[in-house]
């Protein structure tokens, strides 16, 4: 493949970061099987190039809105893996104090304003966050990532239209893994798909191979620049594939085993490794990335396992400033 802009060091770093995501999720899946992760988790195994390519191209002050499948995005935005693991375990010191879990993971300190348990709900929220940036005169962007299934929800139309009409600094990213839960998304999608819908709403759309981390990063970087330059909202359609089930307990028996096997050959981490290898990067460096990631996540796991449960008082904290949440329940 012709790689005019190949920057080995940068790709190696991206390879390393993809491994962190992979290792985090593999750890989390194992912990779920042990009963340590409490609720459902949605691994993004096979989609790490999208996370590293898009979120990795943001500035720290840019804002991010993600989905139920948001571990990779959150890690890339700069959240601590240890805090995230504690959150998945429902422990004190989790990013959300153990009150959110995987589907509501967030780290406002690094501009990550939340995963979301409702498909597509992050789109309007992202448009509004960008609206706030504009009102406050801040020169950052909002990045909003959603899946291919989300393009069939009303907020896709309303939120993209909103961003266009008010000319807001949003980079929309459709991380298209071909599935929405057990459904092959194309069977439930009319017309040519995400890019055409964005364009019809007046938002320039760009398709990219979502398993090629460098390409994703190039596209995201370029689009982010355009947004910052005042070109209005932009749309990136990153085509990837969900290598595992919808949730960690889904064996994905509804799909062809042959196809899954073939898709594993397109694993974005393996692809990056292959390029690096072809350009002389040593096997020890590549496996070092994997090992460091595994070790980091093992430590996060041990730490999370040892963390205490949230204090009882946390139940009633941060509901709202006025009114007693225990009201009536225990009062008279």
């Amino acid at each position, binding site marked *: 493949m012709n790689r005019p802009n190949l920057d080995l060091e940068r790709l190696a770093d991206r390879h390393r970061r993809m491994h962190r995501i992979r290792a985090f999720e593999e750890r989390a899946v194992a912990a779920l099987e042990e009963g340590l992760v409490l609720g459902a988790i949605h691994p993004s195994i096979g989609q790490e190039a999208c996370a590293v390519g898009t979120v990795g191209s943001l500035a720290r002050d840019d804002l991010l809105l993600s989905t139920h499948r948001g571990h990779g995005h959150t890690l890339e935005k700069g959240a601590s893996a240890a805090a995230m693991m504690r959150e998945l375990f429902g422990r004190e010191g989790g990013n959300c104090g153990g009150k959110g879990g995987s589907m509501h993971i967030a780290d406002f300190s690094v501009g990550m304003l939340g995963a979301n348990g*409702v498909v597509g709900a992050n789109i309007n929220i992202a448009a509004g966050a960008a609206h706030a940036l504009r009102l406050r005169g801040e020169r950052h962007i909002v990045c909003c990532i959603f899946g291919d299934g989300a393009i069939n929800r009303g907020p896709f139309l309303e939120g993209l239209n909103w961003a266009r009409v008010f000319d807001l600094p949003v980079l929309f990213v459709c991380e298209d893994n071909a599935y929405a839960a057990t459904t092959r998304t194309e069977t439930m999608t009319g017309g040519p798909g995400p890019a055409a819908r964005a364009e019809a709403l007046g938002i320039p759309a760009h398709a990219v191979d979502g398993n090629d981390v460098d390409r994703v990063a190039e596209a995201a970087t370029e689009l982010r620049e355009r947004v910052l330059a005042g070109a209005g909202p932009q749309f990136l359609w990153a085509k990837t594939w969900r290598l595992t089930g919808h949730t960690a307990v889904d064996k994905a028996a509804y799909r062809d085993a042959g196809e899954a096997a073939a898709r594993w050959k397109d694993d974005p981490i393996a692809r990056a490794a292959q390029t690096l290898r072809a350009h002389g990067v040593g096997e020890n460096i590549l496996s070092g990335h994997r090992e460091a990631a595994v070790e980091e996540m093992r430590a996060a796991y041990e730490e999370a396992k040892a963390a205490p449960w*949230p204090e009882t008082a946390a139940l009633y904290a941060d509901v709202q400033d006025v009114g007693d949440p225990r009201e009536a329940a225990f009062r008279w």
Partner: protein
Amino acid sequence: MVTTTYMEAGRRALAEEMRRDPTVWALGEDLGRGGVFGQYAGMAEEFGPLRISDAPISEAAILGAAVGAALAGTRPVVEMRFADFALCAVDELVNQAAKARYMFGGQGGVPLVVREPMGMWRSSAAQHSQSLEAWYVHIPGLTVVAPATPGDNLRLLKAAIRSDDPVVYLEHKDLWGIEEELGADEPPGELGSARVVREGSDATVVSWSAMVHNVCEAAGELAEEGISVEVVDLRTLWPWDREAVLASVRRTGRLVVAHEAVLVGGFGAEVAATVSEALFGVLKAPVKRLGAPRVPIPYAKPLEDMLRVGPDAIAAAVRAQLLGPSPG
């Protein structure tokens, strides 16, 4: 008799109604692969993809299309996956489905069932755990059902499907696995009739859905202490069986209402207000409501558990009732 789970009972009800009436069909995300909890397993194979229809992630369209399909002569059964996602289709349910028959002066009806798996279940957190039955009871035009047992799930889902009006049908996710022996021929149940699960003379406890099982556990505990509790399972919240509740409380003189939903503004308030008014002077103690504190549902299990109204809380409330009123 066949050992039947709550989940299987729902599947059986739908299948039997679909065999009986060709205008019945189901629609929702992932139904072709059995639905997200497996409640539709094997059904696409029997009835084909037109009658067990997949849907895009378009809750507003799922429910809105069901309204149109009902107005145009079919009986759609809508699967909402989680009761929480029904919040993406409230205009369709409340402004359209519930009001169409009335606003159009009786020209058309909306015979649809909205299945909404509800309640807390395995640390699903704030957006996948809610119990909002009180909302639906407040909306004219809606029938509201919340079965506690496999038998009721079978019989009441049939009744819901045969109803000519929109029914919000709340299955509790925590009940999927519970079992009951059911006959081969189970006729539809009656909407609006409560079930006395256990007779008793010292106090009445009213509940519905999964909470019924906690109440029964508490009643068992209390029986050992010599306290005799009458357990009433409302089953249907609109219409609700006021007569059955009043008859019971007239005998026992005491009432506890327990539900999983947030206590403030919960359906327990309606029951308590009604009984407090109707049986003023008959009640030996103030009606006691039990429900969740007014907080979103947290993820961490110990916090989630603190929200639960368990058998102990119920038993304690009954005991407190027997001590008589607290000073006002």
